[in-house]
């Protein structure tokens, strides 16, 4: 199984001599929802690690507890047992260095604020000065390809643009770790490709940002990831961790036409659907 000895990029300030501390460590995480009688097990046992600068996709069938997992990892919800660590510290609430992009952008952006104000909120909390805030907002909006929407309201934008704003907001305070929960499940196919490339571009431009991307779409996971964590059918366990050794930069047409892409896609698909169990 894929050990977390990812292609660790050298980084100053890491534990000397020892192995680098992973940005995210998940150990035997289990989550059960109490019911009136007994409980419903959403996640049985999930263990994996993510190194700095990696893009890891967590892929699993619908109802596999992916969102539950992400809520546990981002500190929105406590696991029943096991733990998740962010830079070595157990996650108890949402850490300062974590950003989250949710699937439902129309609910996650605040419709009563303009785009600018939506972005400004997290920066104010981090006591950034007014001028610096303005600069940063302009910078991240440009990074997601929306330089001129600051004064508009989110609902005046298309779905894809709204999700770009949500991404910009999560990036605005320069998190170490970015969680994305099925972020492109509610946009059309064309926009989806553009947004996938945006994520790859951002990751290329900010090599220190680690991304954990949850999706049910096998193609998407293979196209984006450095590694894919394949979840079983519910209750979730880690079926396998697949290294994606496709060359970078990736391209929607070329990469998807690569025979290696097809092979990896088939491998992950088998794992997720459980049609042919692999030893």
């Amino acid at each position, binding site marked *: 199984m894929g050990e977390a000895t990812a292609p660790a990029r050298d980084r100053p300030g890491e534990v000397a001599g020892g192995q680098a501390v992973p940005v995210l460590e998940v150990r035997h995480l289990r989550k059960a929802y109490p019911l009136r009688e007994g409980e419903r097990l959403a996640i049985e046992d999930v263990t994996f690690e993510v190194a700095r600068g990696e893009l890891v996709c967590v892929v699993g069938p619908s109802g596999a507890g992916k969102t539950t997992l992400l*809520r546990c990892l*981002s*500190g*929105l919800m406590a696991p029943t047992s096991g733990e998740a660590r962010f830079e070595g510290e157990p996650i108890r*609430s*949402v850490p*300062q260095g*974590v*950003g*989250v992009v*949710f699937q*439902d952008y*129309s*609910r*996650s952006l*605040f*419709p*009563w*604020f303009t785009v600018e104000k939506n972005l400004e*909120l*997290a920066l104010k*909390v*981090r006591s950034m000065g007014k001028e610096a805030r303005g600069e940063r907002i302009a910078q991240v909006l440009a990074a997601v390809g929306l330089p001129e929407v600051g004064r508009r*309201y989110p*609902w*005046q934008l298309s779905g894809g643009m709204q999700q770009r704003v949500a991404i910009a*907001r*999560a990036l605005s*305070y320069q998190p170490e770790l970015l969680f994305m929960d099925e972020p492109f499940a509610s946009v059309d196919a064309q926009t989806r490709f553009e947004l996938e490339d945006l994520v790859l571009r951002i990751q290329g431009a900010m090599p220190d940002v680690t991304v954990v991307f949850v999706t049910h779409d096998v193609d998407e996971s293979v196209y984006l990831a450095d590694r894919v964590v394949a979840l079983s059918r519910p209750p979730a366990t880690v079926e396998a961790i697949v290294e994606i050794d496709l060359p970078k930069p990736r391209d929607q047409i070329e990469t998807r036409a690569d025979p290696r892409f097809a092979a990896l896609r088939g491998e992950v698909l088998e794992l997720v659907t459980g049609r042919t169990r692999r030893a």
Partner: protein
Amino acid sequence: MTRSGVLRRVAVLAGSLWLFAGLVALWWVLSDHSRSPYFPPLRVILHRFDQLWLFSGESTGLDPSLVHLAIGYAIAAVAGVAVATVLYAVPLLREATSPVVYFLYVLPAPVLIPAALALFGIGATMSTAIIAFGCFWPILLNAVDGLRATDTLKLDTARTLGLSYPRTLWSVVLPGASPQMVAGLRAGLQVGIVLMVVSEEVGATNGIGNFIIQAQNNFAFTDMWTGILVLAIVGTALNVLFVGAERLALRWYYGARSVARAR
């Protein structure tokens, strides 16, 4: 605006107002030779209306009424939203008070006018107090409902952005609840107008309610009709003002809603 644009606007306006104008004209014509003391000609009512209420008006009955309403309503609005926020933040308190709150919300506020009369005597304090009391409950209950209906994903988002509790309350929960708060404020205004009139009819020495009851008792039916007209105009004007303010304050809400509908 182009000329055809102007014409179209006029046409739309005419299309929606012809019935209104027609009914007023009908009233004018039908009442013109009326000899019933109860239904004086509209011509006479308007003449008297001018004498009593317009620029050279003798009666200043409206001012105190509006002052009572404004003060009482403002108190109710501020207190209603503030108390609702506390009840939202402290669920235990909310559970504990909810039967009493519901009772006072359902209780038709005019029944308390005699009690207010006993408590405050005749005068401005009584009117203002009963207006504040009556408006408070619909504002409170709607605000609590709105606050409790806060979208959980927005709360999650606030947590991931690292917003503190007070800031989450101020920037996420309160704005999200504002459409329903406004609905409560509108319901409160309706109650307030009724209480303004009724409280003055029962226990005041001035105000529009007092004017109407005096006119009625003195069989001055034309005067009474002008009072009815004043109430109709005041009610409509307050309503228009409210809707205008609402459209302005909740521009984001109506904008987002019309976009959602179009999709």
